[in-house]
């Protein structure tokens, strides 16, 4: 039998019950492992002694009052946490990561119905508003004519090959502490066709106890073709899943940089504006969202970035000489910046300060 690993020996120091079976038998008969076990014990004891501190005295009630009395500052990009919860498989984790892009994916799903954007603008929404968007499937049929197909590769060249020649941006000016271990992801163009159905829409409205808003002529059977990508992403940080670990053991990346051809939408039978009006009139879309979307201006040229008002704040910033939207703040918990330039949507996001995210964005080449 091979010698016991340092990890196994260390665990035996902490837990005598770990000394069982073949490992225990090996330790009993191996002078070398016994010596390593002794050293591990001594190191552990010595460090524990030096780390020991007197217990900190505190008053829980006072502390609680102080915490709950703290001013409710604008929340940071908390959406990152539920959305980037470790996924079931590394590939899914990567997908999740590419989407600190939470924002961008939501934007695709949502604004994809309206636009070929040249600029970005934040729209304050509630999570309920976003969730309501999935109900759009109740108003028609969604068919992928080109399935989203994510490739995970190790070099920018391979990423560009898989993404119809879209080159991953070159990142410079990384703040210290960001891993230089980069994983590349690429997605060829994906395309979905949404076909409106008057029957389904009426059924959906009825299920909300409401009647269908009056439909523009030609809406029934109208199609909307949404094209997303090609896109490439660079993920900084370790994504590998440790051997023998569970599905929850995937580390999340520190920084994601993504570049995607600006999504486009084409419609048949109705105009994009008619479509917008009709969608916003559906039951389940809140008046707040309706108001925000109406305030956007020309929907065919603006990428809407839904910002969940419970979790994230947003500010307009100038990035690479164009208007962008920055999310999060300077606490380092999480932030991101999204902008559109020369037909591409860019995203820089991660566990970093907003000023760092903007700095990286401005230095992207």
């Amino acid at each position, binding site marked *: 039998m091979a010698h016991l*690993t*340092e990890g196994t020996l*260390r665990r035996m120091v902490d837990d005598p019950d770990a000394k069982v079976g073949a490992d225990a038998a090996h330790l009993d008969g191996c002078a070398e492992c016994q010596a390593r076990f002794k050293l591990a014990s001594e*190191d552990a004891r010595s460090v524990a002694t*030096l780390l020991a501190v007197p*217990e900190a005295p*505190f008053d829980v009630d006072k*502390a609680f009052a102080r915490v709950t009395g*703290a001013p409710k500052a604008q929340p940071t990009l908390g959406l990152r946490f539920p959305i980037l919860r470790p996924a079931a498989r590394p590939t899914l984790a990567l997908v999740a990561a590419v989407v600190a892009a939470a924002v961008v994916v939501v934007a695709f799903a949502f604004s994809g119905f309206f636009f070929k954007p040249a600029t970005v603008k934040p729209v304050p929404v509630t999570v309920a508003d976003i969730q309501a968007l999935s109900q759009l499937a109740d108003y028609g049929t969604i068919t992928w004519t080109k399935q989203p197909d994510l490739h995970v590769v190790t070099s920018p060249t391979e990423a560009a090959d898989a993404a119809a020649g879209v080159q991953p941006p070159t990142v410079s000016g990384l703040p210290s502490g960001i891993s230089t271990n980069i994983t590349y992801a690429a997605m060829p163009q994906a395309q979905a066709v949404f076909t409106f159905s008057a029957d389904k829409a009426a059924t959906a409205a009825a299920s909300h106890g409401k009647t269908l808003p009056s439909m523009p002529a030609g809406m029934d059977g109208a199609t909307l073709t949404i094209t997303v990508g090609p896109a490439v992403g660079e993920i900084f940080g370790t994504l590998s899943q*440790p051997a023998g670990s569970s599905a929850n053991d995937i580390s999340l990346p520190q920084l994601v940089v993504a570049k995607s051809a600006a999504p486009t939408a084409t419609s048949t039978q109705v105009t994009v504006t008619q479509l917008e009006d009709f969608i916003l009139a559906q039951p389940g879309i809140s008046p707040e969202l309706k108001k925000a979307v109406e305030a956007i201006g020309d929907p065919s040229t603006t990428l809407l970035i839904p910002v969940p008002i419970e979790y994230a704040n947003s500010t307009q910033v100038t990035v690479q000489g164009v208007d962008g939207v920055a999310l999060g703040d300077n606490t380092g918990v999480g932030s991101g910046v999204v902008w559109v330039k020369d037909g591409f949507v860019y995203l820089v996001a991660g566990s970093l300060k907003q000023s760092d995210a903007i700095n990286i964005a401005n230095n992207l080449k």
Partner: protein
Amino acid sequence: MTAVPKGLSDEEAFEALFTAEYARVVGIANRVLADPHEAEDVAQEIFIDFHRLHSATAEYAPAWLHRAAAHASLNRLRGARRRQKREFAQALEAEDKTLDPQKQAEVAEDRRRLRDALGRLAPKPAAVLVLRASGLSYAEVAQALGIGIGQIGTLLRRAEATLRKEVSRGTSN
């Protein structure tokens, strides 16, 4: 790891989480910083951040708090080395009164050196060491840091071997 009972309002759930976890979060921060006041500052900032962003009923709440406590206090340690001498001396004063003055000074120096080295250690082994030293089980440490339980022993061993070497090196100089 403490789970907040279901069926509470958001505010009740947060209070239950706070009551269950505050001592542990302060303990983690104090272990790193050896300064009870600063540890409380860190703990309160963490709970304020958590309260803004998350539901106290979330399953990951305790793990999130433990991880944040380790990272936030290690970050402070890295940024505050110049203040350490005084702080560790204070912490020692409260604990080791039975030692003679020379021995006290030696131990204080070792502690200062250890925390200095802890601040230079890679984030993952440092966080594993701090959480384990604060009484978290292997499973709790694994959950807090999102790593496999099988890695804990290895990371712990690496951290302790490095720290002990650094402290010994300083002593022999």
